[in-house]
């Protein structure tokens, strides 16, 4: 007949949730909806971050095209100057003949078109491999002032745009997250408030017999956390299948292009479940504590 055992508390908890099933369903759905949206934002951020990383690795080179009339001495001089700049890891020379060969390979079946050219229109160039992407601007500006430079090409804008987009997604995502968490905390707190209200006699008696506030909070806290966790489970399932489906669809559509940078569902779901469990139970605990404040103050 022991009432204060864990098993008993769990049983009571589900009994109470069932008694209030309308509100329970509303709470679980709101937590699940919050977490699903949160999960979408999370998945987006993780994937974009991964892509940004790949992009950074790919665009960490600067193309320096040289004037066609620059003599071999001049070419070498520029090369030695560049290697000494801060942030430069390596400098690779690409002669105009090599560039043409490469282009032919790139053009593949249409490569024969290039055979008809009278003279090679491509310039000699250097490829600078960056050590640290933060020096890119400084390097580009310095090299542009050298004599015998035709053009300096750097995919800075691409990277900056990616970083900007990621940043916006992160900020907007965070804002949406905070609002959604507040809403579901509010809904849970209302559910618990009903539970507390229907048991105010019991709480009142508990107080008179000298129960500590934490003892009284315990079962309600458990109810809130269970609601949050049920929401977390539901949303994890939704996110897993939605992500898997989208992943497969993108794989099919774009084949290797983007999909190479996407993170597989099995990998991402671990983080998602972990995140959801923490946030779900956090929302539940916060909601029930908020609703209990008034009743415990005697």
């Amino acid at each position, binding site marked *: 007949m022991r*009432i204060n055992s864990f098993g008993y508390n769990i049983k009571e908890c589900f009994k109470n949730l069932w008694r209030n099933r309308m509100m329970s369903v509303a709470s679980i759905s709101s937590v699940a909806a919050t977490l699903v949206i949160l999960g979408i934002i999370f998945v987006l951020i993780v994937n974009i971050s991964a892509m940004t990383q790949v992009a950074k690795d790919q665009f960490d080179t600067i193309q320096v095209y040289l004037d066609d009339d620059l003599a071999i001495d001049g070419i070498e001089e520029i090369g030695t100057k560049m290697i000494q700049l801060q942030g430069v890891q390596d400098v690779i020379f690409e002669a105009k003949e090599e560039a043409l060969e490469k282009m032919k390979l790139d053009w593949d079946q249409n490569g024969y078109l290039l055979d008809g050219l009278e003279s090679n229109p491509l310039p000699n160039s250097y490829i600078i491999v960056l050590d640290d992407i933060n020096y890119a601007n400084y390097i580009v500006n310095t090299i542009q002032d050298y004599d015998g430079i035709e053009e300096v090409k750097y995919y800075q804008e691409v990277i900056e745009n990616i970083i900007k987009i990621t940043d916006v997604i992160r900020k907007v995502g965070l804002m949406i997250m905070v609002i959604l968490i507040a809403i579901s905390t509010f809904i849970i707190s209302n559910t618990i408030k009903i539970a507390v209200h229907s048991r105010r006699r019991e709480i009142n008696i508990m107080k008179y017999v000298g*129960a500590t506030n934490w003892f009284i909070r315990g079962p309600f806290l458990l109810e809130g956390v269970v609601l949050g966790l049920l929401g977390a489970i539901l949303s994890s399932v939704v996110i897993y299948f939605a992500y898997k489906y989208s992943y497969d669809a993108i794989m099919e559509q774009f084949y290797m292009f983007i999909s190479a940078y996407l993170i597989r569902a099995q990998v991402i779901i671990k983080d998602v479940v972990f995140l959801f469990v923490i946030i779900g139970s956090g929302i539940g605990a916060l909601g029930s504590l908020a609703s209990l404040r008034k009743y415990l103050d005697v």
Partner: protein
Amino acid sequence: MIKMLNVSKKYNNGVIAVANMNLNIKRGDFVFLVGPSGAGKSTFIKMLLKEENPTSGHVVVDDLDITKLHRRKVPELRRKIGVVFQDFRLLPNKTVYENIAFAMEITETKPRDIRKHVPMVLSIVGLADKQKMYPDQLSGGEQQRVSIARAIINNPPILIADEPTGNLDPETSREIMKLLLQINRRGTTVLMATHDKEIVDLMKQRVIAIEKGRVVRDELGGKYGYAD
């Protein structure tokens, strides 16, 4: 056991429920608290339980000045005081046994001790054969016995009863009083607020009369002293 030193209580709405009260109730006393409706009896009891705080003065319970007691220490105070109310305040979805055991679980008593003590207290209040019944299957007198059993299960030094016989017929009331006297004889200080003239006159215990928040009479073996 209970001391009031210049205690006053003014509610937020301006009502002065207790005015400069001085009282000393010793260990093992049996005290009736009488007085017209609105005299401040319940307010007095609420201050002992720290449900209300005095506006000025000091309330001392079991040698402890509870006036400045921290919120976290309030449960500890309440475990020293068993309380019985006019409306019994039992949990309808728990049996007699569970209602009493509940008070022990809350104070984190070992299950073994609970199993030992509950039947003991049930036999003190004369309900040994009703432990599996639910409150709505019991008479008013029996329900009040359950609530008394719950109040004394943790062996508190003080038992407070606010009109415990208010809902009971005279015969049942006398039986409840017998029980309270029996508990008092075991050393528990009993404080009972009541409007029950017959019982106060019959018991011949200390009577403290309050009017408009002031003690107007305090005598041993006293009478109820009001006509109602």
